Each structure stands twice: as structure tokens, then as C-alpha cells.
């Protein structure tokens, strides 16, 4: 493999890792605080993507400026995260926080199945494709190969922004510190008067919004089809397990490993491409069973 091909593979890996990171970081954030593995996270991704595409189509039909599709991507993510996220957390999840893990998993799985059918009812089964934001930014030629600016510049930039933003939010703001406190030690946080119910809700909405943002930002690059949420949730689980549950920086590193591994596999050993996320996960977990950034056992007071 020449340096030029390695450069190409790196670019593709970065763009892919950026999307995977956005979805996985929301999943891991929710797990860190709520201790619930949220299968319905895949639905936020899919519905975010569908809503973004619908808004894009509406903007085109209304004869508005195509540049409005960019804020529409963010609007779609915020709408899905706040409305759907709040609804599911308030109406369902808060009743199962003290129940067994298996029950929690089944509840979120049920929500996922219901939302899959909702997508079919609303958007039908035919693939959607709405690529206006991708086309507006045009192509860039790197090493003689055309890349889209959207995938090479916008997606990694947004992912970096989310990573830095989440770090700052969790370490410097009051709400962020409360979330960190609950992640670190839920019992102690409750004992000193942290309103865990509110922290749970805020975390869930942020996590859901991030998943929906991943979907919305992916929508200009891919066809939206039934079942897209299921594929993404499986991949996100691999990222989160590799990273260590609840680890934001770990999710970024794991997404990067999986993204780069996948694109290098296409050049070196195409047969391995499909396996890469799980190979990376298995290798990391063999060496560090708690994940890249995971902490083995928290102290219990």
C-alpha cells in the first residue's frame, strides 16, 4: 500500500468515524447516567435522518434558498431529540429505572420496534435520498480523487465540535457537572440533593439529540431505508463496548479505530471489511475487558 492510498483510506475513515461517533457518544452518555442500554437510540438516528430529508424536500418544494437545508439538519435533530426524547423518558423510562436490566432492555427494544413501524407508516418503504447540502458544497480533488467537501470537511468538523463541546459542557457548566456527578456516583449525588430525575431527562434529551444529529448529518450522504436504525445501533454498541461504557473520549477513539480499520480493510483485505468493527472490539476487549477508557470497578460506599 502506497502513502497515497493510505492517505485516501484515512480520509474515508475519518468521515465514517465522524458519523459513528455522533451516534455512539449519545448512547454512551445515556448509559453513563441512566445505566440503561437504549436500543431505541437507533430509532432516533433513523427518524432524525428521515425528518431532515423531509424538511429538505419541503424547502425545495417551497422554493426557499437551498442553504436553508443546513439549519434544517440541526432543526430536525433538535426536534427529534427534545420531543421524542422527552416523551420516551417521561412516559416510559422513568418508571423502569429501578427495575432489572433485562426489563429495561426489553422496554427500549419494544420502543425501537414500535418506532420502526411508525417510520414505515410515515415515510413508507421506498428509499429516500435528499442530498442538497452535500451538493451545495461541491467536490474537492485530493490525490487525484474527488471527495465531497461535506464528507471530508463538514462531518469531521462537527464531530470534533461535539467532542470539545461535550468536554467543556461536562466540566465547566453546572448542568454538566451534575451529570458527571451522577455518572460517577449516583447514590452520593442523590444523597447531597442532586435532582436525579432532572439530570436523567436532560441527559436523555442530549443523547437522543446527538443520535438524531448523526442521522440528520448522514441523510445527505446515503439512502434512507427501513432498518437503517437497526444497523446503526449494532455498530454503536460495538463502539461503546470498545470505548468502555459511559466514556465520551473513548467513544471518539473507538469510532476512529473502527472507521480507519474499515477503510484500510477495503484496500488491503476487502473480505474483512464487514468484520472490522467486531474484530476491533474483540481485540480491545481481550486486552482490556472494561474497554479502552473503561474503569474496572467503581468504589462503592
Amino acid at each position, binding site marked *: 500500500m502506497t502513502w497515497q492510498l493510505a492517505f485516501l483510506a484515512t480520509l474515508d475513515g475519518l468521515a465514517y468515524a465522524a458519523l459513528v461517533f455522533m451516534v455512539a457518544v449519545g448512547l454512551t452518555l445515556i448509559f453513563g447516567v441512566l445505566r440503561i442500554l437504549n436500543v431505541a437510540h437507533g430509532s432516533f438516528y433513523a427518524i432524525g435522518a428521515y425528518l431532515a430529508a423531509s424538511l429538505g424536500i419541503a424547502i425545495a418544494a417551497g422554493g426557499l434558498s437551498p442553504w436553508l437545508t443546513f439549519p434544517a439538519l440541526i432543526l430536525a435533530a433538535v426536534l427529534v431529540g427534545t420531543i421524542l426524547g422527552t416523551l420516551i423518558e417521561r412516559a416510559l423510562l422513568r418508571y423502569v429505572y429501578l427495575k432489572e436490566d433485562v426489563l429495561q432492555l426489553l422496554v427500549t427494544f419494544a420502543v425501537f420496534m414500535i418506532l420502526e413501524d411508525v417510520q414505515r407508516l410515515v415515510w413508507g418503504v421506498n428509499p429516500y435520498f435528499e442530498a442538497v447540502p452535500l451538493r451545495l458544497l461541491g467536490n474537492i480533488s485530493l490525490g487525484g480523487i474527488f471527495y465531497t467537501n461535506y464528507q471530508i470537511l463538514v462531518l469531521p468538523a462537527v464531530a470534533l465540535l461535539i467532542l470539545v463541546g461535550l468536554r467543556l459542557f461536562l466540566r465547566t457548566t453546572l448542568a454538566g457537572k451534575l451529570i458527571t456527578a451522577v455518572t460517577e456516583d449516583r447514590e452520593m449525588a442523590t444523597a447531597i440533593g442532586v435532582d436525579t430525575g432532572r439530570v436523567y431527562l436532560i441527559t436523555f434529551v442530549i443523547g437522543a439529540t446527538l443520535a438524531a444529529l448523526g442521522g440528520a448529518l448522514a441523510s445527505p*450522504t446515503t439512502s434512507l431505508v427501513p432498518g*437503517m436504525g437497526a444497523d446503526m445501533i449494532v455498530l454503536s454498541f460495538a463502539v461503546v463496548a470498545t470505548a468502555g461504557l459511559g466514556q465520551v473520549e473513548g467513544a471518539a477513539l473507538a469510532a476512529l479505530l473502527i472507521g480507519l480499520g474499515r477503510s484500510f480493510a477495503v484496500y488491503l483485505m476487502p473480505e474483512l471489511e464487514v468484520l472490522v468493527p467486531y474484530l476491533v472490539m474483540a481485540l480491545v476487549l481481550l486486552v482490556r475487558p472494561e474497554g479502552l477508557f473503561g474503569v474496572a470497578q467503581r468504589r462503592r460506599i
Partner: protein
Amino acid sequence: MSRFSRILSVAAVGLAAAAPLALAPPALAQDAPEGAPEELVIGITAFLSGPASVFGEPAQAAADMLIEELNAAGGVAGVPLRALYVDEGAGGEHVLSEYRRLVQEEGVDAMFASISSGNCNQVAPLAEDLQMLNIMWDCGTQRIFEEADYRYVFRTQAHATPEMLATVLYLLRTKPDFQTIAVVNQDYAWGRDSWNIFLTALQALKPDVEVVAELFPAFGSPDYSAEISRLSALRPDVVLSTAWGGDLDTFVLQSAQRGLMDISTFVLPLAESSLERLGTDLPEGVIVGGRGDHYFLHPEKVGDADYDAFVAAFREQTGAFPIYPVFHVAQALSALEGAYLGAIEANGGAWPDREQVVDAMAGLTFAGLGREVMIREDNQGLEDQLVGTTVHDDAYDFAVLDNMMIFDAEDVTTPVGAESVSWLSTLGPEMLELEVDSFSHTGP
């Protein structure tokens, strides 16, 4: 006249007009043959959920329309037809258990199964066990009749071998001088098998061809960026993909956006089912097939009153032009009707039992909405193959086909008793001299 009385009088006229219809006896029901049941029930398995519902939903809509039309004209020899559906999207286990339930509890008269080749592989032996007439109405695996003999299982369309071979022949006729080829297929049985068939035929007919990349991204992959970068660096003369549905759409749109389609000639044997969705993003010069002679602007069928009426009605009903699974389900229904009519005639005008219907399937000739299909002695249908090249026409907001060739099924289908891959490897240059019917795009 007050507004109220005007409404009343309109209603009265309307009722008077409707009354004779309501009172008339059901059309033709009285001339059903002796011993005929009240209705004929069939079970149809199709993907109604999951990614392959892009095929199942249009097929279901078409089956409902065609059955309604058939029943309005009196049904099958005076007996109305009714369809029950099984969702293949729920998985193979579900299909098998529902299949048994429909046969043993609902007492269906025939089964149409299925879209998925995996399901056909499972269902064919089961149908044989249950002695149930089973029409494989859409699945493409070439293996079933090559590996075993069946009495109750029939296929009313071609299989992967003629579909791939016709594409290879078209490619070699239209672009004989290409040197390099790359493949990007979905990583599951169809993606692997179709490439094996395509490559065997290609190497037999053009031994000097060089395969520069064989890529099998995950089924349902949302992103082909790495594949496209690698192909852009390799610059193959031809890129083949037998992908379908959302996967094909994503691959084409990402390739078009990044200029790969300007570098390589794309060969997409299933893209007839994506033409309308891809819009003008599918450029000109792409080689497209439709698993049979299936294309809504079928050069021999456009202008035929029934055909045009169906295409218009289907579009009215679903908002889209019909695609190949629609034509496949039409062929299966036409075969079933033909078998019943033939069996009734052979039975001296009385209603036949199932064995007599199965007997009548052998050697049956029928036509759905395309050219005639014949069931040959191994129960495999002989279906002609249409391949064309995309061209843009202002009358459509998506690419349509030009430079079409229809290959005769007899020429491109594995002979009875032969195994596809070994047969393909024996092909010689005479295959390139076959007579084919050629057609141009003539506008709307």
C-alpha cells in the same frame, strides 16, 4: 329549488343509477364448472417489511389490482380468487410456519413463494412434502431445479444465470474492447452467487479480462466512500454491481457525486427497479437490466391497450411506475389461471383436483404483462431478458433505456439437467453471434 331539495334529487338520481348494479347477480358466477369451490385462495409470501419491501410492496399492490380485475371479469373460470400474504421480512422461520399454517389450516389452493432465494430454498422441499402447488414467483437462485427434481414446485420467471449471462453478452456487444472490471456487490448469497455466474461467463467469452477489485460491502451499508475512493484510484473500465434497493441507490448516488461514473462504465443488472427513484442522478450510458423483459416502457408492449391501462392504473394507485417484481407477480397469476383453465379442459369441463392442476403446469405457456413464458420439463420458466443503456429524455424526470436488446430465453438459459457454472464455463464465441431483437428509445 332549495339547496336541500337539490341535494336530495341528486342523491335520488345517484341511487337510481346505482340500483341496477347492486341488484345484478355477480358476473358469470353461475357458469363455474361442476364441482367448483366458492373461491380459490392463494398464499403469497413477499417482503412487506425490511429493505426488500421495495419489491414486496409494489408486488402486493399489483397482485391486489390484478386479482380485483380478474374477479371483476368472473375470476378463474367463474371462481373468484383471494390472496393471503405472508411477510418474508419477519424471517425464514416465520415464513415456514406461516406456510404450513396456510396450507394445513387455511386450506389454500396454491402458494406463491417467494422473493428471497433463501426462502425458496427452504420452501421448495416443504411444498413437495405437503404436495402443495408452489410457484416461485420472484426468487433468483439457479440452484433449486439444478440440484433436485420437483413435482409441485415451478418457477414462472428466469433465474440468475440467464439474467447475468444476458448482461455479459450485452456488455461484450456494446463495449467489446474493455480490459478491466471491478465488482461491488452486497455481502450475502445473491451478491456472491451473481458475481460467480457473471465472472464465469465473462471469463469464458473474454479470457483476457482483468478483475482489478472484488468488493463485498455489508448488506445495508450506508457508506461506500472507501470503495469509491479505491475504484477511483484503480480506474477500472467497467464497474459491476448487482445490488438493489437502498444499497444500489446509495452506491450510485455516491459514485455519481464523486465522479466515478464519468471514469467507469457502470453495469447494474437490477437497476430497472431503481430508475425512477434515482432520478437524473443516474447518468446516461449506464447498462441496466430488469430480471427478465421487464421495463415499464417495454418496446413491444407500449401501445397495447391492456398494458398501457395497467401501467397507468398502477401509477395512479401507487404513485410509481411498475418495476420487475410487479411483472413477476403478474406472470405467476397468469400461470396459475392458465393451469386451472388447462386442467378444467383436460378434465372434461369439470373442476380439477390439485394433481390435475399440477399436471397442467408442465409445459404451460403464459404471458403476464411482458413476453410469453414457457415452463419447460424441469419446471423452470423460460423468460426472455431485456438489457438497455440509460439515456435522459425530457419527458421523464429520470433515466430511461435506449439501445435495448431482448435476449431469447432459449439461448441464455442453462439447459435442462446442466449445472449453471459448469455450463457457463463451456460457452464459446458463438454466443456473441446470437440473434437478438434490438430496440431504441422512441420517446413517450
